[in-house]
């Protein structure tokens, strides 16, 4: 069976879903800067990997853009001061996961110009791949599409793997979010510049930028910006969720499948988000660090939705007040509605991996009764990985978690949410799968420990 098809102009993949986009509220709004809050909370672990190590003391004055923490290893990145001000303290702060994690608290000076004085220009053409990789790490840039995986690590593929194609993800297939859309429309040159940096570091031959066809202005802007760069092409893809998932986009644009449990590098590809590349393209040539990012704040629970440039470490509550959060707001989600987690507290800061903040109001709550699985096959038709969520769900109910993993590839599920989205019985399939994976991990941990003893 064919699993992807190629139309005249728009490619896409065969499954997935297309929920109402809800992007019209913010898609046309230019990026606006959020004012600095009275206190910034900069967690030392805003990325996947080892936490950064502070290099500043309490009461120390810092200028905007100055490094305040160094990378805690290869899979780690440094942090830079998001504002000119004084270090208040280094102490635990609530994190999105619900626990406490060490953070640097910084009080911006209200009267400072907040100009970025730090940095010095350099010529990327003269840099070797290894120098580039080091330079990328120094910028503190991580995957800004939500994964927050350190970008420079992707530039060093495992031994024996060669990357021939760089994939740039401009799909932004999650409903509501328009962060990447605005970045592509407003900073296309930076995106292209970033793409050239990663291509050079990887020694890749070509770059394909995949953009969904619901963003014609972004496609037009990028197409203008790539003129003169023959190795970079812009490919329009049909809007469909979860096209922006790494594995799916590789399939759509390269017609290759990443092996189960493997990496994009296994099929010669590396995937970067457009916002990541835009920051890289802007910061690296100036030797600067990542101190802010674009966040879409939207949803029925805010009165002033928009695309905001927020200093990293801006407390969520403060950001939401600027966007005029409503009193009937009921839940706050970081990221898109399909995969984003709901936050437990508004005291968490905006970090490098936050693409958007979605606020629902009480009215949106639909009381929904859960029915038994009627085997309607909607979930099977929706799963982008061709899993069988119907069967997985039935096994989960019977707590046959190991069978789910051994016979039905539970581990491949990346919790995209398509199956739960389409289920007419409202079965919380993804929730079941998370639990099952958790139980399997714990069981496995136990047997490993038993063997070790």
């Amino acid at each position, binding site marked *: 069976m064919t699993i992807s098809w190629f139309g005249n102009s728009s490619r896409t993949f065969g499954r997935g879903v297309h929920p109402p986009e809800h992007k019209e509220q913010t898609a046309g709004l230019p990026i606006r800067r959020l004012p600095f809050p009275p206190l910034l909370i900069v967690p030392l672990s805003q990325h996947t990997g080892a936490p950064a190590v502070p290099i500043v003391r309490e009461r120390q004055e810092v200028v905007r853009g100055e490094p305040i923490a160094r990378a805690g290893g290869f899979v780690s990145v440094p942090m830079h001061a998001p504002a000119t001000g004084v270090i208040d303290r280094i102490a635990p702060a609530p994190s999105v996961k619900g626990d406490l994690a060490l953070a640097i608290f910084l009080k911006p000076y209200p009267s400072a110009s907040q100009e970025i004085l730090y940095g010095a220009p350099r010529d990327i053409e003269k840099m070797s791949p290894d120098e580039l990789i080091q330079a990328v790490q120094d910028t503190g840039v991580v995957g800004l599409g939500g994964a927050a995986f350190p970008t420079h690590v992707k530039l060093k593929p495992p031994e024996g793997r060669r990357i021939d194609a760089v994939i740039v993800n401009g799909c932004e297939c999650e409903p509501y979010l328009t962060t990447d859309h605005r970045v592509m429309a407003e900073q296309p040159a930076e995106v292209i510049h970033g793409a050239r940096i990663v291509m050079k570091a990887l020694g890749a031959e070509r770059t394909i930028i995949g953009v969904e066809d619901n963003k014609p202005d972004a496609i037009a802007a990028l197409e203008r910006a790539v003129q003169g760069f023959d190795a970079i092409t812009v490919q329009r893809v049909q809007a469909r969720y979860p096209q922006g998932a790494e594995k799916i986009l590789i399939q759509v644009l390269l*017609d290759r499948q990443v092996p189960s449990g493997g990496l994009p590098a296994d099929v010669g590809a590396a995937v970067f988000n457009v916002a990541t590349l835009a920051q890289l393209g802007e910061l690296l040539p100036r030797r600067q660090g990542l101190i802010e990012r674009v966040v879409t704040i939207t949803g029925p629970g805010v009165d002033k939705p928009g695309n905001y440039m927020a200093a990293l470490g801006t407390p969520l509550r403060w950001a939401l007040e600027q966007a005029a959060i409503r009193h009937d707001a009921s839940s706050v989600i970081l990221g898109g509605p399909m995969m984003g987690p709901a936050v437990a507290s508004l005291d968490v800061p905006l970090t490098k991996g936050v693409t958007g903040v979605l606020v*629902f109001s009480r009215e949106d709550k639909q009381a929904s009764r859960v029915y038994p699985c009627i085997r309607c096959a909607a979930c099977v038709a929706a799963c982008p*990985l061709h899993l*069988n969520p119907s069967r997985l769900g039935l096994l989960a109910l019977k707590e046959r978690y190991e069978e789910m993993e051994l016979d039905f590839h539970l581990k491949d599920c990346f919790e995209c949410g398509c199956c739960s*989205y389409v289920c007419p019985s409202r079965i919380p399939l993804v929730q079941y799968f998370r639990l099952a994976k958790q139980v399997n991990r714990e069981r496995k941990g136990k047997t490993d420990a038993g063997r070790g003893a």
Partner: protein
Amino acid sequence: MPAAAPEVELRSSPHLHTRRSVAMIMRHVIYALLPVAAAAVWFFGISALASLVTAVGVCVATENFLSRLAGRGSTVGDGSVVITGILLALTLPPGFPLWMTAVGAFVSVALGKMLFGGLGANAFNPALVGRAFLQAAFPSAITAYTPVLARNRFSEFIPATLTPPFLQPPPLDRWIAQARVDAFSGATPLMQWKFDGAATDPFALGLGAVAGSAGETSAVLIALCGCYLLVRKMADWRIPAAMLGSAALASLAFHAMNPARYPDALFTLLSGGLMLGAFFMATDMVASPVTPRGVWIYGSLMGLITVLIRNLGGLPEGVMYAILLGNAASPIIDSVTQPRVYGHGGRK
């Protein structure tokens, strides 16, 4: 920090959901069945109406009672049991004794659905379980057909309809005689073909102006209503496509071998319960496979078995058994047609 402290509520992703729900799917199936039921009443009169009311009423009452008994609260709200009632009545002869209809309705829901564990757990289409039971228990009553468009159909019940409980229905010859001037053999087109080698005008077959089970006669109307479901994506189009396609192909082959003995494809498609079965019973989601390839196999299997029973078996009609066999095979079909998972050696 300033006020504005909304209570945040924890929810698990995804936070969006399609509007399609189980109740909505069932409601659409009922809508699609209503014209078919109305046609049954038009063709066969108040007896068909009484049969529909009895079947639906007993089905709903049975599920209501048994689900409460099982301590789960009533589950009739999802509407699936109404479909079972309507389908059962549509597959019975118009003058089928109401007490037997009630027994069949009870068996459909009690044995065909609740015994398995209710909605979603039934291995077979519940209406067909009831129908199969009735066929075994009352073989003569279930083959007693009356003419279509009888003159007195709205003023009088077909006498068999009102048979007192536990008694066999009276002979229908006298009622049939006053009903219509034309000769009526008491046989459906399928029976006429099978036992007398007589063909029926395809036009009459398509429209449904022929004898038969109350709701199975108008092939064209059923197909139209079925297509509504397919277009609204409330049923899987591949099932009727595969079932009708394979039935047509199989009868084409039979007809080519011996045109005198085996009917042509058109007759096969338009006669008996094939249309109703293909659009409304084989598509029962619960008892059909979930894999894309499995659905094709399942549909084709049922079409083929229908024709094999009709042409080679002793019975004039085979749709019911074909679907029940398809239902029985669906778990196996599912397990041999698991989709190939992304990244597991399909393509590079």
